[in-house]
């Protein structure tokens, strides 16, 4: 039951199915009306010229902001509901005791489904080590989680079609698996803080949280509101940059730096992306604009992955459990993986 408060004293109990039904219907209406509405707004109401730099930039902005917001609201809610069935505690149980290669692949795959709230990075890391999961396997998870997150995948699907989303997922998984295997082989265990090893074999909880569907839907919507609120600044900046690129960036410039004719395109865009950090959702509008200007898919994917996978805030948090040498190895391995993916997909996708 959802409780609707009408005024100080009156409360109406609304059955869950009705609330969900109305919400889904409202979303569909907004989704279908959005494109024609923003087009009308830009060109009829504001009277901007089609094809003009400013007109196109504003059109991009007005089209993208509601579209991405709607996608986010819908997608995060659905994915969080699904994800409620895969808590990290269960993931850990599934990974413990598996062989290295199987474990690495499983860990990387789980990274897609599990949330990566930065504040959980440390407890998660400790939890994995506690259960005796090899370092490489843990890193496969740490690599895939922020990079191949479901928000990015579904946004890519919604905006560019399933092909691109699958390609991105495959690329991210590859970097995570290979990265995890490589780091595992390097024997960097001594660069993990001592207190983490001391906890090995202890802890673990048998507590299984029982949740009703009402709980799950409430949790999912609550998380969605919170996450969307946190993403929105990145999103607006991303859409702003995307709009500028769309309206103003000369196609020749993008082609010169990031285009096929430049063999150094991939390293250049990755280098630009390294110090930048954004939630995956924020990169999508930039990706959209770059693709529109003719940047090849591999280069664009590399750019997007570099922005999300390599983030200084995350490294600072991880510093609590691993030393800078290991963080450096982590960052380097991922960067090399991304460079490789960039070149590979430029080669494969014409």
């Amino acid at each position: 039951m959802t409780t609707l408060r009408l005024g100080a004293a009156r409360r109406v109990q609304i059955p869950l199915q009705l609330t969900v039904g109305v919400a889904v219907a409202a979303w569909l209406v907004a989704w279908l009306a959005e494109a024609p509405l923003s087009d009308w707004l830009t060109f009829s109401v504001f009277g901007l010229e089609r094809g003009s730099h400013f007109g196109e930039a504003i059109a991009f902005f007005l089209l993208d902001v509601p579209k991405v917001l709607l996608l986010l609201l819908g997608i995060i809610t659905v994915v969080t509901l699904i994800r409620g069935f895969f808590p990290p505690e269960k993931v850990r149980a599934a990974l413990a005791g598996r062989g290295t290669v199987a474990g690495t692949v499983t860990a990387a795959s789980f990274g897609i489904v599990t949330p990566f709230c930065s504040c959980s990075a440390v407890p998660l890391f400790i939890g994995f080590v506690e259960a005796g999961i090899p370092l490489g396997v843990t890193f496969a998870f740490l690599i895939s989680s922020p990079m191949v997150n479901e928000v990015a995948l579904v946004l890519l699907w919604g905006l560019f079609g399933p092909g691109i989303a699958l390609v991105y997922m495959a690329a991210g998984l590859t970097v995570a698996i290979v990265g995890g295997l490589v780091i595992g082989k390097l024997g960097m265990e001594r660069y993990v803080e001592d207190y983490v090893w001391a906890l090995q074999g202890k802890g673990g909880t048998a507590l299984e949280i029982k949740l009703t569907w009402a709980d799950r839907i409430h949790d999912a919507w609550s998380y969605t509101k919170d996450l969307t609120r946190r993403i929105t600044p990145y999103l607006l900046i991303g859409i702003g940059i995307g709009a500028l690129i769309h309206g103003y960036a000369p196609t020749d410039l993008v082609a010169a730096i990031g285009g096929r004719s430049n063999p150094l395109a991939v390293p250049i865009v990755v280098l630009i992306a390294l110090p930048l950090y954004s939630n995956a959702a924020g990169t999508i509008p930039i990706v959209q604009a770059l693709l529109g200007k003719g940047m090849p898919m591999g280069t664009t994917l590399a750019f997007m992955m570099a922005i999300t996978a390599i983030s200084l805030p995350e490294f600072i948090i991880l510093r609590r459990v691993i030393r800078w040498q290991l963080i450096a190895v982590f960052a380097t391995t991922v960067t090399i993986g991304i460079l490789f993916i960039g070149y590979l997909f430029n080669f494969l996708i014409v």
Partner: protein
Amino acid sequence: MKKIEVLGPGCANCVRLAANAKEAADMAGVEAEIVKVTDYAQIAAHGVMSTPGLVIDGKLVSYGRIPSAGDIALWLSE
């Protein structure tokens, strides 16, 4: 007096959980001491991998989500 521990590094979720816990104690009419545990080793010792976690009188009752004040009040009354 019940001891309620909120496990987490101190981000917004942990703050919200602590607020819910306080409200729950008032709702249940129970005297409770609310402690924030931010040390990672201690959090891990309870087996929590997704913060925030909630421990009442030494027993882990929730992790990975923010239970409502109503839910917490129920646990406090048990």
